[in-house]
């Protein structure tokens, strides 16, 4: 379980996160939504252990991340960042192999190679394995990084809970791969020792896939829970300044927003 208690983070006068507390359960699709500048990416950085200057505590399985070494955290926690630039010409296979870096000290083991192979196949990158990463399209690059972070926390039957943090993972993908990816994540979640946490902009995709939604507005959580609890007309208006038509089914469950 991933929990955060009373996280406040400011830079100078500006408070980016204000008393944020949350708990994400394994086996669920947890999605963070909010307008630009609401603090979503900052929250992701704090939760993934990249920021130090916050108050409050972040706990991975009740262990405080302030007390964990980088490598200790990296064995079970992978993060897909918004934009990743590779400084030198590297092959796709080499970039995916980076996901296994926390697991070996000098040379990858046979198991590490096998995991990379499987991750590459999962994201249909077989034909690109030897291509120079720098020559790929935006969507292809995104899939390479998906393969990399999945390889990092690949299910090898370990007991420990694994964590996958995704900051706007769908940005560069076409609609086919957006759905494909969400389906893959849903499938991975059947293993109930995995916590998935993502920032998503597309509210309708959030409605379709989320088990738990967290709505951020100006650095505060203004609602969290099921889509029915969070995506009320009032909340959407406060957070996004739009008034969509909320389409529900006969069970009063939200199906989609007509924007």
């Amino acid at each position, binding site marked *: 379980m991933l929990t955060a208690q009373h996280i406040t983070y400011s*830079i100078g006068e500006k408070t980016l996160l204000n008393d944020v507390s949350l708990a994400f359960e394994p086996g669920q699709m947890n999605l963070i939504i909010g307008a630009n500048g609401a603090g979503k990416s900052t929250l992701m950085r704090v939760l*993934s*252990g*990249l920021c*130090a*200057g916050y108050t409050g505590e972040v706990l991975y399985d009740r262990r405080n991340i302030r007390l964990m*070494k*980088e*490598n*200790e*955290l*990296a*064995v079970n*926690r*992978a*993060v897909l*960042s918004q934009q*990743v*630039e*590779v*400084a*030198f*010409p*590297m*092959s796709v*296979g*080499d*970039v995916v*192999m*980076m*996901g296994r*870096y*926390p697991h070996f*000290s*000098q*040379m*990858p083991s046979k198991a590490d*190679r096998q995991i*990379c192979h499987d991750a590459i196949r999962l994201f249909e990158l077989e034909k690109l394995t030897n291509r*120079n990463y*720098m*020559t790929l399209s935006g969507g292809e690059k995104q899939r390479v990084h998906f393969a990399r972070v999945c390889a*990092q926390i690949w299910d090898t039957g370990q007991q420990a809970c694994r964590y996958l943090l995704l900051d706007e993972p769908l940005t560069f993908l076409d609609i086919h791969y957006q759905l494909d990816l969400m389906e893959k994540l849903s499938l991975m979640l059947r293993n109930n020792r995995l916590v998935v946490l993502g920032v998503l902009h597309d509210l309708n995709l959030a409605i379709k896939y989320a088990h738990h939604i967290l709505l951020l507005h100006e650095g505060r959580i203004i609602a969290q829970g099921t889509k029915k609890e969070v995506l009320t007309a009032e909340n959407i208006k406060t957070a996004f300044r739009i008034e969509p038509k909320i389409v529900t089914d006969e069970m009063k469950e939200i199906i989609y927003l007509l924007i």
Partner: protein
Amino acid sequence: MLNNRYIKSEWLLILALLTALLVSVRFGAVDINNDEIFSALKKTFAGDTLTLNERIFMHIRLPRAVLCVIAGAALAVGGVLMQGLFRNPIVEPGLVGTSSGAAFGAAFYFVMGSVLKLSTGQWTLPVAACAGGMVSTALVYLLAPQGNGSKNSAVPLLLTGIAVNAVFLSGVGFLSYIARDPQARSITFWSLGSLSGASWDVCLIVAISTLTCCLAALYFAKQLNALAIGEDEAMLLGVNLNRLKVSVLVINVVMVAVATAFTGIISFVGLIVPHLLRLVKGADNRSLIIHAALLGGVVLSIADLTARMLLRPVELPIGIVTSIIGAPVFIYLLRRKSYYF
């Protein structure tokens, strides 16, 4: 997957290195033939007295050729490390102040040595240069702002390096200005590099430092690879960023300062060799370090041979040769369409 594609090229480079060694021991102000080489080796082992040519081979040519190979390796591997650390292909090992500090140390010795009654033994100059290189690099590291939250925290280090370099180079300029003519000439000469100071003692010292540093560099190769996708990403992959930075800087400064102390400033080798290799072999740092150690030796041997042969029997400073050949090669590499950086 990662292993096999490198093996062949390593043997090729080792072959090239041996060839370069063999050619460079034979030619120079005096040419030495194969028979003399064999008899020199035989007599040395047997403890017999050597003829003049055999002595030239044993005590001048061979240590010089060996120093070439080692110093070339040090500079090239230093280049790989610095380019990896700064995630920037146009960085060379001297960028964090090492070579300008070393030049200042050397110039200080040339100009102030007699005033301060420094020892005139053969080790004073290298010690002064090495100390200068280390002091300036330490200054760069201490003065660089610890930019928390900035996307690429190597940038402050790089910019501080430029500033500190400027200070030390103006120090060299000042010392040259107040120097008497022969001292000023020594400074200029040292700044252009030369391997004529090679001896077996020198070879041993540079070999120990270079070998140790190269092995240490190999240990950090994986973490440097992770750095290629960004400092944040490297941390997310479990890299202790501060430890990596300090370790790589220390490895680089020891290796480069020790080599530079005995050879003077040799430019472009540390810049071009990693470039050339990345073009052919890709950017995996483990393979880059191994290949750079070999190719650096080959390149510096060829450069030294050229410096000795071009205006024979006069010897050119090697820094002139590396720059004049290196710069056009570098520009050619940059202009190739297939090169991404």
